């Protein structure tokens, strides 16, 4: 937790050449020639490049792959990323489809079944109200994954819009947005998250609405670093010749912004993926402290609260180890996929 600021240092800069139909002429020279042509002709990496037809001029026809499909192929080759992706898919099935196959979905309180260790009928045992832990783990997964994704979408939306505004219009807008980002980034995240969580508890918001508030909170606190990243991307992209061409063609602001955003998309995708992992971790910390998603709504974080009771902690590990492992594995899978995407979308890593 000590390094929320660390990623400020190594900003990821990825470039994918624009391949929209409107301006192939402008985009063409800046398609990284090595990547696309070599990748297009070679049957597998490391194979000797087949000699190009000398008669064929270097055009888009000679290069049927879009940067996106190149990226997809690279991602497929990354074993760890594929594994992560498969795991995430399984996790989604487990959380969203799993409960339909469980006989204990209603989560009825059953006094006779309190604190039973794992057995054939309850694979992960039962909790303090006699509910099936495995079923609750699935239902909690829904909430935790949902919170992670929605807060990421929120922060990406806010961050990208503000970042584009700042980078594109510069001047006063830029100053205002970036100073606000500076201020928010200088306040450490965890303390402020905890404090706002505590305030929310005082406001006595009901359990169902709490989830949405937690999403908003985590999403809102993540936008400054994103805005900064997008802004720096836009600043470098707008100096590139394809933007000069867009300028010369007299395109409207909306069209120019579209080009900018499309080119910033690879970076955004990577950051957004990693953002889900961060949001899931933040949610689990908050809920573990009793300040995020609160029971009866289950989340992986608040299931771990069982560990706060000494006797549950020492003698009933089935109550708190499974949700912890679930968080850990999900976050690791997301990180692997994010890293794979970073490699796949970056033309410079030419393996």
């Amino acid at each position, binding site marked *: 937790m000590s*390094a929320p600021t660390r990623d400020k*240092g190594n900003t990821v800069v990825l470039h994918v050449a624009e391949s929209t139909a409107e301006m192939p002429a402008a985009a063409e020279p800046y398609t990284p020639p090595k990547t696309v042509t070599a990748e297009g002709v070679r049957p597998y990496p490391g194979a000797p490049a087949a000699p190009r037809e000398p008669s064929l001029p270097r055009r888009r026809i000679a290069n049927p792959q879009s940067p996106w499909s190149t990226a997809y192929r690279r991602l497929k080759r990354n074993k760890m990323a594929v594994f992560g992706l498969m795991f995430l898919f399984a996790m989604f099935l487990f959380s969203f489809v799993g409960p339909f196959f469980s006989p204990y979905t209603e989560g009825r309180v059953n006094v006779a079944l309190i604190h039973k260790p794992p057995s054939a009928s309850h694979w992960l045992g039962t909790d303090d109200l006699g509910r099936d832990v495995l079923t609750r783990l699935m239902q909690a997964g829904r909430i935790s994954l949902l919170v992670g994704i929605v807060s990421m979408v929120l922060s990406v939306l806010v961050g990208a819009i503000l970042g584009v505004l700042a980078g594109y219009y510069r001047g006063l807008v830029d100053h205002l947005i970036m*100073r606000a980002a500076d201020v928010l980034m200088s*306040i*450490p995240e965890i303390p402020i998250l905890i404090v706002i969580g505590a305030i929310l508890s005082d406001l006595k918001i009901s359990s169902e609405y709490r989830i949405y508030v937690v999403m908003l909170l985590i999403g809102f606190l993540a936008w400054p670093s994103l805005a900064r990243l997008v802004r720096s991307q836009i600043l470098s992209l707008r100096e590139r010749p394809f933007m000069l061409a867009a300028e010369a063609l007299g395109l409207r602001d909306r069209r120019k912004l579209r080009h900018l955003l499309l080119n910033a998309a690879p970076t955004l995708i990577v950051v957004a993926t990693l953002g889900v992992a961060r949001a899931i971790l933040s949610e689990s910390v908050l809920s573990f402290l009793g300040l995020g998603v609160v029971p009866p709504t289950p989340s992986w974080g608040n299931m771990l609260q069982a560990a706060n009771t000494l006797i549950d902690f020492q003698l009933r590990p089935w109550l708190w180890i499974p949700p912890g492992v679930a968080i850990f594995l999900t976050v690791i899978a997301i990180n692997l996929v994010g890293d794979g995407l970073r490699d796949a979308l970056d033309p410079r890593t030419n393996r």
Partner: protein
Amino acid sequence: MRQYMTKRILYLIPTLFGASLVIFFIFALAPGDFLDSDLSLTPERAAELRALYGLDRPILERYFIWLGNALKGDFGYSLQYQQPVGALLKEYVWNSFLIASVSLVLTWTIAVAVGVFSAVRQYSWYDSLITLGVFAAMSFPPFFIGLLLIKLFAVDLGWLPIGGMTNTGSQSTGFAYVWEVAEHMILPSTVLTMLSVGSLTRHFRANMIDVIRLDFVRTARAKGLKEKTVVYKHALRNALLPAITLFGLELPGLFSGAIITERIFNWPGVGNMHMEAIAHRDYTVLMGFTLFLTFLTVLGNLLADWLYAVADPRIRYK
């Protein structure tokens, strides 16, 4: 350079001012205060105390009083501990510093060694193993790993104490005391190290891979230097350069405490104090502490920039 730093320092003023505004209003808007949680107070007595503490004044006035005092180094008076917040920080900050510094040394040593080692053997099975380990370290939910270690080493095996800094009611002095504290800090500093070693290792590995491809490394090899000299003397030095920025960012972290880890291990540091203060709605402590953290963060960023310019003469700021 001097001009750049002056500009940076001047920029700090609006940033800190904005941050203080945000911090204050978050707390001011919070419902309930310390007096509300004391049910033994009669309404009249509570009103009297509110007037005494200045809690009944308009919010903007309270902000400026608070800010003015904070500028003079007076962060207010903790209602729960009945001590000035500054004194409280001073009391707890060294405990945080203790585990943070141990873990900082461990983290950097491990990260440099492992990062460089795996960069030199890029794409080997060893490298993949390290990469996986790094991802694991980056993905631990901070509280879960702490709980797991306590369960394993303190509860099940009984090798190490569960939490705290000394044994309950301990009167030991001298060497026995040092030993006791050392024993108690093994687990928390291990957790802190595990939590931060991942991203740092990754950073060093990436830096090293970048540097090893550069021309001067090839030249060094070409002129017949031993591989060891090439890697550890020529390449490593250059790979360490960007890390100086991180070091600047991390230095203030030594004093900021680790809220979650300290909480789990009940380590009497500033992070733990922070959680106590939340439980008791002791807002003066919380505001003072958050402002303190903000100041440290800002200072860290400044330090990072400055160190980088000092270490690398190629950097020219405008």
